[in-house]
C-alpha cells in the first residue's frame, strides 16, 4: 500500500506535487543527505533552510535530475519518477534556478531561453522569437530585452532570464537556490512580487535562503536541514520567530545582538584622497573618492551594487591601478604599489570572490592559510617550506577559529561557504593586520556563520585594527560600523555616524548629504 503516493486532495489540503522519501546522497567523505523526507504542496512557497553545507543544494540538485540519489524515492504529482538527467526533471515540470546562474554569457536572452528545446527544429529565426519571448515575459510581469547578451545584464535581470527559461519550458514546480543572495533590495521586492504571482497561478516554489526575515515574509511553510538530516519538516511559517528558525538550523541559540564596545578611534590608518579608477570595460568607476579609516574603528561603505565599491576595494588592496589620487597606509604611500608591498605594511583583505580570489580552490587548507606566511620563518626554512610547521600552523588556526573541516589536507573547494570564509579570515587576521578591507564578508552564509564572522570583525576592532567594511547588507553595516560612507556612481555622497537608515537610503539613490540637510532645514 505504501509503495504509491496518492495524488489526492483532502478536504482543504492542496494536493502534494512533490514528495521525496528517504533520500540518501554521499560525497567522498560526507553524507550530504541522510534519509531526507520532503513534501511540497501545490501553490505554496516552501522555504528550505539550513546551515552552510547542510545539504540543501544537494537535495534540490537531486530533485532537478542533476545528481542521482544513492537511495530514496521521488514522487512527482503522485507518480514515482527516476530522473537520469535534468531533461527528465524538466519534462516532469521541475525547473531549478541554481545558486550560480546557468546562463551562457556570450549568448542573447532569447538564445538562452531556447537552448536545449526541440523547437525551432533547425533554422533559428531569432527575430521571430524575440517578439514571442518579450510577450511571454510580459505575461509574468518580467521586463527583459530579449536581444541583450547575458553579460550585459545586471544580476537581477539575469535572474529574470533564469525564471523565464523555466517558465517557458512549462515548469510548474520551481526550485530557487538562494535567489536573493546577489540581489539589491529593490530587486528582491520585484522578485517577491513575481513569486507571489506565480503561486497565485497554481505554481509551487521551493525557496532556499539564509535571510530569515525574507523567509518569514515570503514562505508559507518551512523545512530545515541540519548536517544532512531533516530537523523540521513543513512547519507553517506564520507566527514563527527568527530565533526559532535560527535554533532549528544551528541547534543552538543565535543572538541577533552584537555587543560592540564603546571605544575611541586611534590614528588614521587608511587615507584615500581623490581616487579615480576605471572598471573592466574602461569606463570611469571611481570619480574622486576620499575617505579615512582610523585604528580601532569599523567604517562601512554602503551602496547599491555596481557603484564602484568593487573597484575601490581592488584599488586599495592593490589589485587594480588607479588613474589619479593617493592612498596612504599609516602615512606611507601605497598607491599603485604591488600587493606584497601593502601586505608587508599590514594590509589584510577579505575579497568578495572567496572561491577564486580569496582561496586557491584546488590547494589544501594548509596551503591556503600559509599563503601570506610561507616566505618568513618559521614556515620558511631557507628555500624550503617546513611542512611540519605549516601543518601545525593550519591545525592551530582550525582550532582557534572553530573551522569545520575533514582534515587540513582537504582541498579548499570542498568546504562550505561559511567554513571557507573562516579560513580566509583566519589567514588574514592571524597576520595582525593594521588595515582590514572586508568585502561582503557574510554573503551567502548561514546565521550561525554570520554571527561568527561578525564577532571576529569586532574582535579585530577591539585589537585596534582599522576595518573598511563594504557590504550591501544595510542591517549588517549599521550594526557593525562606527561610521558609514555612502557611494553612488563612484562618488561619496556623504557620511553617517548615527546609522540613520533613511538618510543612507536617500544617498544610495544619489542624493548628496548637503541636499538632505538643506531639505531638513
Amino acid at each position: 500500500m505504501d509503495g504509491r503516493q496518492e495524488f489526492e486532495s483532502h478536504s482543504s489540503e492542496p494536493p502534494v506535487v512533490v514528495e521525496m522519501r528517504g533520500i540518501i546522497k554521499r560525497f567522498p567523505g560526507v553524507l550530504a543527505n541522510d534519509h531526507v523526507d520532503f513534501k511540497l504542496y501545490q501553490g505554496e512557497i516552501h522555504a528550505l533552510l539550513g546551515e552552510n553545507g547542510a545539504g540543501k543544494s544537494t537535495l534540490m540538485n537531486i530533485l532537478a535530475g542533476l545528481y542521482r540519489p544513492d537511495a530514496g524515492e521521488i514522487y512527482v504529482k503522485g507518480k514515482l519518477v527516476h530522473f537520469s538527467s535534468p531533461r527528465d526533471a524538466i519534462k516532469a515540470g521541475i525547473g531549478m534556478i541554481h545558486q550560480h546562474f546557468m546562463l551562457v554569457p556570450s549568448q542573447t536572452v532569447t538564445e538562452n531561453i531556447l537552448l536545449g528545446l526541440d523547437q525551432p527544429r533547425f533554422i533559428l529565426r531569432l527575430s521571430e522569437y524575440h517578439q514571442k519571448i518579450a510577450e511571454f515575459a510580459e505575461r509574468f510581469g518580467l521586463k527583459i530585452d530579449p536581444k541583450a547578451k547575458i553579460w550585459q545584464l545586471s544580476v537581477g535581470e539575469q535572474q529574470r532570464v533564469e525564471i523565464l527559461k523555466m517558465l517557458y519550458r512549462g515548469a510548474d514546480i520551481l526550485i530557487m537556490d538562494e535567489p536573493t543572495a546577489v540581489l539589491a533590495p529593490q530587486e528582491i521586492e520585484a522578485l517577491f512580487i513575481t513569486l507571489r504571482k506565480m503561486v497565485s497561478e497554481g505554481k509551487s516554489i521551493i525557496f532556499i535562503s539564509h535571510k530569515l526575515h525574507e523567509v518569514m515574509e515570503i514562505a508559507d511553510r518551512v523545512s530545515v536541514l541540519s548536517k544532512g538530516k531533516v530537523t523540521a519538516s513543513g512547519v507553517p511559517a506564520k507566527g514563527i520567530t527568527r530565533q526559532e528558525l535560527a535554533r532549528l538550523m544551528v541547534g543552538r541559540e543565535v543572538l541577533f545582538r552584537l555587543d560592540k564596545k564603546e571605544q575611541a578611534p586611534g590614528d588614521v590608518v587608511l587615507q584615500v584622497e581623490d581616487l579615480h579608477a576605471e572598471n573592466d570595460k574602461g569606463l570611469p568607476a571611481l570619480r574622486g573618492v576620499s575617505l579615512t579609516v582610523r585604528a580601532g574603528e569599523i567604517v562601512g561603505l554602503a551602496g547599491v551594487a555596481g557603484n564602484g565599491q568593487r573597484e575601490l576595494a581592488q584599488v586599495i588592496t592593490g589589485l587594480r591601478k588607479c588613474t589619479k589620487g593617493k592612498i596612504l597606509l599609516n602615512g606611507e604611500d601605497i598607491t599603485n604599489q604591488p600587493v606584497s608591498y601593502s601586505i608587508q605594511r599590514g594590509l589584510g583583505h577579505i575579497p568578495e570572490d572567496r572561491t577564486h580570489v580569496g582561496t586557491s580552490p584546488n590547494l589544501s587548507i594548509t596551503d591556503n592559510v600559509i599563503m601570506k606566511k610561507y616566505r618568513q620563518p618559521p614556515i620558511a626554512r631557507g628555500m624550503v617550506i617546513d611542512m611540519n610547521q605549516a601543518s601545525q600552523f593550519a591545525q592551530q588556526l582550525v582550532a582557534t577559529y572553530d573551522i569545520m573541516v575533514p582534515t587540513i589536507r582537504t582541498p579548499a573547494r570542498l568546504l562550505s561557504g561559511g567554513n571557507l570564509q573562516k579560513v580566509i579570515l583566519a589567514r588574514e587576521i592571524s597576520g595582525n593586520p593594521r588595515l582590514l578591507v572586508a568585502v561582503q564578508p557574510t554573503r551567502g552564509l548561514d546565521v550561525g556563520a554570520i554571527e561568527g564572522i561578525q564577532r571576529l570583525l569586532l574582535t579585530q576592532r577591539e585589537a585596534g585594527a582599522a576595518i573598511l567594511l563594504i557590504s550591501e547588507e544595510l542591517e549588517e553595516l549599521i550594526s557593525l560600523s562606527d561610521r558609514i560612507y555612502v557611494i553612488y556612481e563612484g562618488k561619496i555622497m556623504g557620511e553617517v555616524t548615527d546609522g540613520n537608515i533613511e538618510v543612507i537610503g536617500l544617498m544610495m539613490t544619489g542624493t548628496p548629504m548637503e541636499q538632505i540637510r538643506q531639505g531638513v532645514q
Partner: protein
Amino acid sequence: MDPIIILQAGVASGTVLLFATIGEIFAERSGVLNLGVEGMMLLGAMSAFSITVKTGNPWLGLLVAMLAGGLISQIHAFISIHLQADQVVSGLALGFLATGISLVLGEGLSKAGTVSLMPSFSIPVLSQIPIVGPIFFTRHSVLTYFGYLLIPAAWYYINHTRPGMNLRAIGEFPAAADTLGINIYRLRYFYVFLGGVMAGLAGATISLAIAPGWFSEMTTAGQGWIAVGLVIFAQWDPIRAAFGSYTFGALRRLILDIQGPTTILGLRNPFYYNPYWGFFLQMLPYAFTIIVLVIGSREAIRKRLGAPAALGTPYIRGERGL
C-alpha cells in the same frame, strides 16, 4: 610570376587549410582542442591516395580518407571527453599515432605512379568575370568549389541554427547546457568526429587534387599546424578562416614562385641568386603559426579574441568549485 596565377593556385592550395581549419573550429567550438590535425590530415592523404591507387576511384579514396580521419579522432574524443585527460597531451599523442600509421601503411606508395584525380573544371558563366573569374572559377578541382559552399554553410550553421546554438553553448558554458538537457558528451564526440572528417578531407584534397601523390610527411608538410594557428587567427569564425586559408595558400605559392625569375619589377631577384634565402621564406608560415599559438595560449588574450570559454576543459557534472 603572374599574380592571377599565384592567386588561382593560392585558392586551390588554401582549400586544404580551409577544410582543416573549419573542422578544428567545430571541435574547438564544442570545447575540445585537438592538436592532432596534422596527423589526421596525413592519414587522410595516405588513405585517399592508396585507395585510389588500388581501386582507381578517387571518390572512394575521398570517402575512406574522411572516415579514417573521423574514426581516429575518436581516440582523442574518448581520452579527453570520457577519461577527462589533458587535451593537449591527448591531441599530440593522437597526432603522433596517426602520423605513424600513415607512414607505415604509406610505405612504397610514393612509387605508385599516377592515378586518376578528383575532376577539375571551370564554371561556365562565372569564369568569364574579369579577375574573379580566372582566380576563383577557372580549372579548379571540384573540392575547391565545395570549399566555397562550405564557408557560408558553416557560418550559417554555427550562428543561425538550433544545433549551432547548442554547439556554442557547450563550448562556452557546458554546465548551463547540461541543466537544460543537452547531452554534452554526445555532442562533443560528434564535433570531434566532424573535425576528424574534415582533416581527412583536407589530406585527401592534397593527395588527390592540389599536389597529387604521396611524399610521406612532406605531403602535409605542417599544414595541420598552420590550421590550428589559423583557428585562433580566425577567432573561431569560418568566414575569417576562409580569408586566412586563402591568404596563406597564396603566400605559399608566392614563396615558391618568387625564386623563379631573375628579376622582379626590374630589380635583381635576390631569391634567385641566393637560393637558400628561399628557406627562410618557406619558414614564414610556420613562424607565424608558432607566434599565433604562443600568443593564443595566453588566457587573457584568448578571452579577448573570443575563444570558447570552456575550451580545453573536460566537463564533469556536479564538479565543485574550479
